[in-house]
């Protein structure tokens, strides 16, 4: 059961990474980040079979942080959209030095 879970987690994480790297829509990137977080959650849960309940506790933490992050992140994206009328990351390079 464990190898399958970890394999599935790895695939999920890779999909998330590829999504973050290849897409330009901020909302999709945001969703891909969530995908990566959930891939990690899956690994935690799967590995808690071997290492005790600590991993499952972490999953709860991750989910609550992810919820907070979703609230802040979506607020930022809305603010950006109001400013640029776009959520295409290509147009958003305010961090440029």
């Amino acid at each position, binding site marked *: 059961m464990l190898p399958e879970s970890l394999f599935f987690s790895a695939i999920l994480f890779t999909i998330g*990474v590829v999504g*973050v*790297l290849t897409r*330009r829509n901020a909302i999709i990137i945001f969703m891909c980040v969530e995908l990566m977080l959930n891939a990690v959650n899956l690994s935690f849960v799967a590995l808690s079979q071997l290492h005790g309940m600590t991993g499952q506790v972490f999953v709860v933490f991750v989910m609550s942080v992810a919820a907070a992050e979703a609230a802040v992140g979506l607020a930022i994206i809305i603010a950006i959209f109001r400013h640029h009328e776009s959520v295409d*990351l*290509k147009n*958003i*390079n*305010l*961090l*440029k*030095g």
Partner: protein
Amino acid sequence: MILQAPGAATSGAHPLSGTLADWIGLLPLIPLLGFVINGIISLFGAYRSGPADPTLAAEVAHGAGPGTEAVHTEHAPSAAHAGAHPRAGLVSVIGPAVLGATFAFALALFFTMTGAGELQAPFVKEYFRWIPMGDLELNWAFQLDQLSMLMTLIITGVGFLIHVFSVGYMREDPGYPRYFAYLNLFVAFMLVLVLGASYPVMFIGWEGVGLCSYLLIGFWFSEKANADAGKKAFIVNRIGDFGFLVAIFLMYVNLGALDYLGVAAAAGELAFGGVLVTAICLFLFLGCTGKSAQIPLYTWLPDAMAGPTPVSALIHAATMVTAGVYLVARSGFLFALAPAASLTVAIIGALTAFFAATIGLKQWDIKKVLAYSTVSQLGYMFIGVGVGAYVSGIFHLTTHAFFKALLFLGSGSVIYAMHRAYHHTHSHEDAQDMRNMGGLRKYMPVTFILMWIATLAIAGIPPLSGFFSKDEILAHVFARAGESTLAQATWLGIPGHSVLYAIYALGLGAALLTAIYMTRMMLYTFHGPNRTGEAERPHLAEAPWVMTGPLIVLGVLSALGGWLNLPHILPLGPTEVLEHWLEPVTGAATAAITAGAPALPPANVEWLLIGAAVLIALLGIGIAFARLKPERLVPAREAPPEHGIERVLAHKYYVDEAYDAAIVRPTVAVSRRVLWRGVDTGIIDGLFVNGSAWFARGIGWIGSQLQSGQTGTYAWGIVIGVLAVLGAFTFR
């Protein structure tokens, strides 16, 4: 500082210690005090009148007349177009008074010295440790001996007279306090120069007088030619000072001492005629050629006439330019060991004496004539000290200080009168050109008589002072040519006695030319019809008493100065006083050069030499009277251009032009093309300054490209980094 308790090693047993001589440090301090006071007055005056002084502009506008060389134009005694300084009265008291006080103190020191009996060793007063350097302990010390005493008396005495004269000459100048501040500072440094007990102390004074000379030549700096003349004097002197410094370094390295007593003691170890002592002497003499205006560095002195005339009298005739002669006489113990160097000194002196005299023949500016005359007479002094006749050189220095100061102050008085006359009619003619003078005898009788006394003195007519000093030098040259270490030595392969006879001939030739050009100057200035102009003539008048007074004193000194050192064959009084006075300082060196032979030729030969010299002088005056007709002269603006040799002489053999082409222009070109465009603009600005900026900018550009602001790029970076770290752990 100077008046601190004496240092550890004063010569306790010296008869002068505990007397007035302990206060010798006051000598330069008194004029320094005058400098400080006058300087403060000058500074406050400058602030009060503000920077936009309208009188300055008026002066500049008046200065450059048509058809006059700018350097000639001296607009000193300008009564109306420049307001006198508000504190001029105070300055007129302080300026000369500090010199009077210094002179009085010098006289008191002199009588202390004569009262102490025969002094063999010099009195050295140490004040503080100056340069403790390795095993060299150099103290700031002053040395009182017969030579420095004599120089001090000349500087303060003649200096005092010239300060008094300046009160009349410069009083109306707006820079009057500044003028006296510089003049006082000059005397202070000149006293440091002659009183210093070591070469470095002398060098401080040497540089100080150079500074004051620069400041005073460029005194009317609002005119560029004057400022340029000051700069030229300063830069040409740097070449000489380089030689002096190298000589000091050589002495430090090889002799381990720099004070006169130490060097004299160490010089005993040196090989006679060796390379080292010859090099030291030649480098010292290079310093002399700069300061004392000898070939090849003489060109600054005629240009130095751009300064006020009393400055020319004090600095560029009587005192500073004789510092080189003093230096050679002071270093006699070294020059006696280096016959080749001594011969060089005498040869350069003889060549300069003759060469400058020929230029003096065709100058029209009255001060230029006197300037070349000064160069020529300095050459005479170097003949004297070069052949080991140190006393004769110093004797001629003394008499020259009298008659040349008189000539310069007399010419100042003439220029003052001319300038006032031209000023009345607002004419822009050159007040210094002799072609504009003529017939001044009627208008300035006192100056006329005194100038003739000085002229006859410099020409060598007995019994005036110049006759004795000049003949003594020539007699010594003649005697050395017979038998001395110099006659046995060779100079560039030429036997010494031939060289000495040639020097004697050049000296006689220079004496002839001196008589001619000086008589010419007198004829054109004071005789014949007046060429000043109809409108100006009624305004020509004798200078005030404050100016003629010093002239009269100098006239008496010029006439009677010869009694300082009468030759023993002419017992008109106590003979050879100066010889006896300076014996402790220079006697040993002279004895070393004469090497047992008599210092002077036998009496009958000496009479013959005197006869020849007097004949030559009379001949020169006669030629001038016979050939020069002041009646035929026309004013400067109508004068036809000169031709042939006259043109060459009037242009001073084109030496300035040659120096310009051979040295100045290449230096400027190299400075501009290589040093400025190449090194400065190219390497320093381009490679170092701008290059480092470009380098930093390039690095910055690379860094800025990493920060694109595209979060996607950053994410790629993170992913690649993580993969790299993971890969490194996995495939380790």
